[in-house]
């Protein structure tokens, strides 16, 4: 019996050791789940696994730096690569939670343009390489709203013209921008106005006008569901989620691009990742011109490289051309504002307190 015990314990130990030894053949890639992770798996993970013969473990999270901070501080980093928003990349980099990346190894465009010029300005960072531009927009169910259709961001706040509940994300971010634009502030002046106490008051006053009609959502998968259930008449949402519900599930959802607030998603490597080099290899592969263009046929987020734009094809199921559904398509981009990560890094705590106090009263 004793001998059996010793044998099984050492076998288990051996197994663990072997597991550790093969860990380099595995990469843990963390992203936001749902249709978005699916697009990454199809466009990046599967071809890379086939090419390199390694396993990519896909995990989901809900954004933010909490898990990365916990892993880095505990010295036990299990995430190799994380899909992050720009504000988190900047902050994570400042706080030493992310590895600095050597951007010179990124492959050039097919025509030889160096990566640094090929990537849209502002999409490369010391600690992050952008893959997509995504956007927060609002959408409605065209089978429910008959007659005049909503056109502008002001229509979202107009409950007389378009009665019914509104879906909004339960955070001050983006909602305050929408409120100001609906109140007549031009897109390029939004953050200037929001930086003053009067501007914040003005945004909250505008939100006040629809407060009783709002259903608050938190996860990106919720708004298409709220629309489909008829819980809300109009809802803010991530453009890719609405597009997928329309293209893949045939929902009669329409996006209103006026006043869209766009942002970036970037790859970041948590500081101290044991597979840092393998993760960088994966970044090089997944952010080349073809891969970024491929991803756009699975979800309607714009590629971060200019050279990818002409290569964007049709949706893999619905077969519709994806070009016109990109946030950056000229027709959609007329009145757009980029999410100002520095403003939010500065004021998100107090605005969040104010937002929650406003909600509870």
């Amino acid at each position, binding site marked *: 019996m004793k001998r059996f015990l010793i044998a099984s314990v050492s076998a288990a130990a051996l197994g663990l050791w072997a597991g550790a030894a093969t860990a380099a053949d595995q990469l843990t890639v963390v992203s936001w789940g749902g249709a978005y992770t699916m697009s990454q798996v199809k466009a990046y993970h599967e071809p890379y696994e086939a090419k390199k013969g390694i396993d990519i473990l896909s995990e989901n999270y809900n954004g933010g730096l909490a898990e990365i901070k916990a892993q880095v501080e505990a010295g036990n980093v299990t995430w190799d690569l994380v899909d992050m928003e720009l504000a988190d990349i900047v902050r994570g980099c400042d706080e*030493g939670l992310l590895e600095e990346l050597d951007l010179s190894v990124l492959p050039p465009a097919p025509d030889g343009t160096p990566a640094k010029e090929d990537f849209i300005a502002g999409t490369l960072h010391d600690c992050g390489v952008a893959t997509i531009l995504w956007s927060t927009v609002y959408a409605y169910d065209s089978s429910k709203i008959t007659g005049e259709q909503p056109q502008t961001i002001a229509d979202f706040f107009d409950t007389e013209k378009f009665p019914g509940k509104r879906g909004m994300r339960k955070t001050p971010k983006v909602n305050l921008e929408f409120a100001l634009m609906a109140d007549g502030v031009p897109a390029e002046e939004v953050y200037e106005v929001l930086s003053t106490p009067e501007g914040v008051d003005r945004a909250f006053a505008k939100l006040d006008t629809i407060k009783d009609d709002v259903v608050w959502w938190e996860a990106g998968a919720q708004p298409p569901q709220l629309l489909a259930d008829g819980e809300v008449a109009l809802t803010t949402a991530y453009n890719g989620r609405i597009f997928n519900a329309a293209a893949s599930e045939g929902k009669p959802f329409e996006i209103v691009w006026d006043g869209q607030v766009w942002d970036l998603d970037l790859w970041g490597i948590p500081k101290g990742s044991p597979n840092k080099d393998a993760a960088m290899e994966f970044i090089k592969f997944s952010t080349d011109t073809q891969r970024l263009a491929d991803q756009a046929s699975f979800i309607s987020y714009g590629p971060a490289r200019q050279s990818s734009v002409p290569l964007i094809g049709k949706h893999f199921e619905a077969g519709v051309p994806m070009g016109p559904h990109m946030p950056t398509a000229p027709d959609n981009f007329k009145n757009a504002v980029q999410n100002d990560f520095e403003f939010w890094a500065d004021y998100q705590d107090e605005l969040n307190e104010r937002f929650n106090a406003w909600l509870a009263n």
Partner: protein
Amino acid sequence: MTDAAITGVVPPANEPLTTADGRPLKSALARAERMRRVKAMLLVLPLLLFIGVSFLFPIALMLFRSVDNPLVADHMPRTVAALEAWDDRSELPDEAVYAALVADLAEAREDRTIGRLATRLNYETGGLRSTITRTGRRAARLEPPFKEALIDLNEDWANPETFATIKRLGNRLTDVQYLAAVDRRYDVNDNIVAQPEVRQIYVSNFIQTLWMSIIVTVACLVLGYPVAYLLSILPLRYSNVLMILVLLPFWTSLLVRTTSWIVLLQTEGIINDVLVWIGILSDDGRIQLIFNAEGTVIAMTQILLPFMILPLYSVMKTIPPSYTRAAMSLGANRYYAFWRVYAPNTLPGVGAGCLLVFILAIGYYITPALVGGQDGMMISNFIAYHMQRSLNWGLAAALGTILLLGVLILYWVYNKLVGIERLKLG
């Protein structure tokens, strides 16, 4: 039994009692006792260690985090030292402070600690984050006089409040997190003042959390008491089926149960549909039953109900039915016999159930996060926010400590009123 029976020989009267191998009996006994105690200790040692490592240590760490404040003292030592002499808070500090500030920020940028420093200061005063990082970027290239150079760079450096904040955070131990957790802060002269009204959120939320937990506890008691009573008096074959009905939801995932409440209660959901169908509500007049405080209370009551029913049932099961029969045979009516004889006997179960439900409810997180919507948030949702989003773990720890203290006080009150030895879980 005689001494002779233990030792086997009759000792002389003046010698101490010994065992067979000649040792004094007293020490042999003590030794045997000690061995037993050591063995018992060894048996519980793993558990003690486990509790220490997984329970007491994290709580101690949390308490420490709520007052620990090393960042500014570690990374701005020169500025903190120079600010010692700054007393008149209506005036800006002198050039020496600005020079120290430039040196500190240049160094902090060099060793990449400036981000954490900026975040820490930003928790106190919104906007300081970009002031610090931008100044840090330029600090190495600034020329004296630094006072003008810095004020020229950013007007925050012309505000005495900025320096008051830095000076205050220069202490390694701080109470600012506790003040923030009760909607208070220090002003420029280090007086404690209330936060601006639009930002006051925590005190009202503590009260709301307490209030909602009380409602959930009372609702569980009112709903659970008859069920537990029925369970205890029904014949076994019926009570078994009923017991499974109580336990089945208990074994179902919390998320599944919460989500099914959304399906039931949402405005296009089953309850509203039925009410519209039978004509109680008009189609436009559907009521909001979920994503608010009412929805949270409904879902939490259902989820916590088994924690009330089970202790109640186990106590009721032990009350002999002859008690009530005896009371009635002595002239009490049903009502009187129930209230004066049966109900007091169930008190230990009521106490245990209420305590269990209340303590679980006051720290509840997932259900309010999913169905709390606009006004059904509880304090643990804010703790989670500061753990996960703002990364202000100090404030999260302070909020957690206040919650823990609240629970301990209530536990103490319970002990004074009911007595903890009367608690009965089964």
